[in-house]
């Protein structure tokens, strides 16, 4: 199973790297979204530094949905049938798609994070924690996106349905991430918010692995 997961991750990442949509479309759009807000509220550097981290997470959530959905949708029915007939376990497919999406989301987070630092100049005290928070958020969003793509697979209007499913389920992740970074800014403890993110990720992983087969059969 691990062999299957590794082979699929490599193929999916290579497929996405060649398509180049994350690098050439989604990251620039995320950057534009971050750029528009300072233009709208004016040059109030204190305010921008305060709201920057929150806006970063909103952009990660909204555009991250597109990244994960795009990645999950890249494996359509003919490919799924082929993988099924090759004996690839649905849980292995879930794991591979999730890990590939997580890596893409991490790239997206790092690119958008750098833009946030340049445009908003947030207080970076204690931000070593981001080495934990960014992967937890990326993994959570990736799992939600992969689950949503499985749930809406074969349905008409799936490209609209999947983001609608993802956004509400992602609220605990957005809340945990935003509260953790706010805690860093004001010097409060953030461990419980990191735990919230970790628990959400574990629950999503269990849901994804346990429902992979029933969702495929349905």
């Amino acid at each position, binding site marked *: 199973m691990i062999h299957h997961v590794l*082979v699929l991750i490599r193929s999916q990442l*290579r497929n996405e790297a060649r*398509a180049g949509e994350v690098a050439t479309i989604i990251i620039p759009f995320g950057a534009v979204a971050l750029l528009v807000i300072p233009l709208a509220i004016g040059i109030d550097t204190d305010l921008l530094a305060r709201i920057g981290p929150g806006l970063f997470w909103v952009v990660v959530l909204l555009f991250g949905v597109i990244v994960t959905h795009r990645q999950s949708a890249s494996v359509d029915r*003919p490919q799924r049938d082929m993988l099924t*007939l*090759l*004996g690839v376990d649905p849980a292995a497919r879930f794991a591979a798609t999730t890990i590939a999406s997580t890596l893409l989301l991490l790239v997206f987070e790092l690119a958008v994070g750098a833009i946030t630092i340049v445009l908003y100049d947030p207080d970076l005290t204690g931000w070593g924690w981001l080495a934990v928070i960014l992967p937890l958020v990326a993994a959570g969003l990736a799992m939600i996106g992969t689950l949503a793509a499985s749930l809406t697979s074969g349905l008409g209007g799936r490209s609209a349905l999947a983001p609608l499913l993802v956004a509400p389920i992602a609220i605990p992740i957005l809340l945990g991430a935003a509260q953790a970074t706010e805690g860093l800014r004001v010097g409060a403890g953030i461990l419980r918010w990191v735990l919230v993110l970790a628990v959400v990720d574990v629950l999503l992983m269990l849901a994804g692995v346990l429902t992979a087969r029933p969702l495929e*059969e349905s």
Partner: protein
Amino acid sequence: MSDAPVVDVTGVALRRPNALILRDVDLRVECGEALGLFGANGSGKTTLLRILATLVRPTEGAGTVLGAPIGTPHAESVRPRIGLIGHEAALYPNLTLDENLALVSSLCIRPAMTASAALAAVGLGGAGRRRAAHCSNGMRRRAEFARMLVTQPDLLLLDEAHVGLDPEASGIVQHLVGEVVARGGGAVVVSHERERVARIVARSVVLSDGRIEPAPR
């Protein structure tokens, strides 16, 4: 391969909330036999192939595919012995043909051929580095045939595999079916092109109104 039929199903039906797609389908494919399956658009041919591929569970009926009872978890065990070529190519569009076939080879339990040898065998030896998205429909079809050479299925299911093929590629279909039959496996070939298919199958049936009938001579 044992002497048991490759496909032996009776009374297969598939109901959907607003439609009865298949009703009371009886179908038998012996070892070493290729069967032609014809029928009008929407008659349920593709659905029947997906049931035989164990990808869809019938709502009624019983029987076996490669000895495994259909519609049960046991059917999963025979999946790696089934090869299905559907309407759309199962290729990752931004991977090259070589990479697509290498992926299949890496996931396959016992690949019978390397990716490059399989591509060469279907006349795509010089196109291995071309991305699937940049290939013509005919080339993508050939790549699918190459996939079958790598996986060497005991049950080959072809869903309108002749569409858009030149005569040389049609010869590859004939070769593929012939190989499976010679190994003692079975093949079901769905098509609208009866004359072409008649050359490669021993027997044909028609799916009409959700039921199987013998094909008119």
